[in-house]
């Protein structure tokens, strides 16, 4: 699982944010925090097993599945 996570696109977010140059410190800090949050969520999700695919599923069908 670790190798899969390291190869995932989420990890690549951090260097791209650190190298961002046009927007100012506050915005970069904000983006960095968002990416850390996403990585934490992804790590949590990885412990939960395979999730179903919810692409283009309507609200009523989602409720039918719940």
């Amino acid at each position, binding site marked *: 699982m670790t190798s899969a996570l390291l190869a995932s696109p989420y990890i690549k977010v951090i260097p791209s944010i650190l190298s961002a140059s046009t927007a100012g410190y506050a915005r970069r800090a904000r983006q960095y925090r968002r990416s850390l949050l*996403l990585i934490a969520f992804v790590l949590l999700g990885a412990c939960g097993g395979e999730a179903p695919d919810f692409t283009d599923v309507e*609200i009523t069908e*989602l409720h039918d599945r719940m």
Partner: protein
Amino acid sequence: MTSEQLVAWHLDRIAAIDAAGPALASIIDINPDALVIARALDEEWQESGPRGPLHGIPVVLKANIGTADRMPTTAGSLALLHHRPERDAFLVRRLRDAGVVILAKANLSEWANFRSNQSTSGWSSIGGQTKNPYLEGRNPCGSSSGSAVAVAANLTVVAVGTETDGSVVCPSAINGIVGIKPTLGLVSRSGIIPLAHSQDTAGPMARTVRDAAILLGAMTGVDPNDPAMSKLPVTVGNYTANLTAAGLDGKRIGAVRSYYGAGQRPAVDALFDQSIATLRAQGAEVIDDIQIDTSGMHDAEYEVLLYEFKADLNAYLEASNAPLKSLTEIIEFNDANADAVMPHFGQDIMIAADSKGPLSEPEYQEALADSKRIAQSGIDRALDEHDLDALIAPTNGPAWLTDHINGDSFSVGSSSYAAVAGYPSITVPAGFVSGLPIGLSFIGAANTEKALIEIGYAFEQATRARRSPEF
């Protein structure tokens, strides 16, 4: 399946294609409590059943909609980077009561695109440039850019946008989804960073008409703090009760041919003709070549927006806990932080608005009366003269290339009729031009959302025009 799984799946997708990969940049803030909220809603469902059709469903909010949580409310501006309102916007309270999970805040055209005439839609100084998911170099339109892209790219189930003129329907159409701009006053504006109270409204954005209608039903509710609501009959209700594929049978529809860009884009005109043929095939009678004279409306509208932006924003900032208290202070902040705030375009509209006087001035009063009279009488006359249920027009042209040097290049539009009148409109995917989505707008008289939704649903069932962007 649980709401927690649903939320986790969407967060995973945001990480994969919004923050990385094609980097759509539709999301400006993630709700750090989203999974915890989802888990609590799952437990509640187990114990006492669902609150309603939105229980446990992820919703993304445009970043000018106030939330009293750990996400700031910024309108995309660095000037409000740390602004956390003390109360949820009224519509957010309604949604939380309905059991939604506020998943994230969406990027937008900064200040709802009321900063510069040279602006690029979907760009903000906090969120950067949101991309069109159908072709990433193309523009997502705005100002509810992130809300539309997040829905189109399956980063959320539904989203809420706001519109003053086109900001729900244009990004919805150009990203291949459904958007509803309600009658002025149907949805409360309390707690939303304002642009202009005589035209502002929030609206639902979704991949299907049914989902948009469900969200609209949860957003409505009488707010005593919004003066526009007292002028309306109570129309809160169930907008999905009568959705049927036969909803076009016997309807009378007027095809407006005086929309912006008419006759300039043959492929859009051809798609419009094809949509009319579909409506007729479904049993509607279409009266073609409706002309609505809007001479003088746009100049009057712009004058109204300049006046109201200053008055409304100043009132919002003064009453809130925002760090800056006036439009003047926002302009000074932007000047002091020009490198970060204005790398692509300036703030000429803000400066023009700040030069305006109070709303008691005759110039404002006359412009407001003129703009409303021209827009409302134009729609009313067309509907009455031909005994119509709705008007139709193309919502948009194909998405233009995002260009931070020259700004936006709108080619086709029809939002202003309903936006200025304060009347409802709904855009439904109609097809594609060169692989880029085009929407069809259904416009009606005040408080005809239910009828427009039923007509839009039947058109959607007949066409099934939406296709997901591919990643």
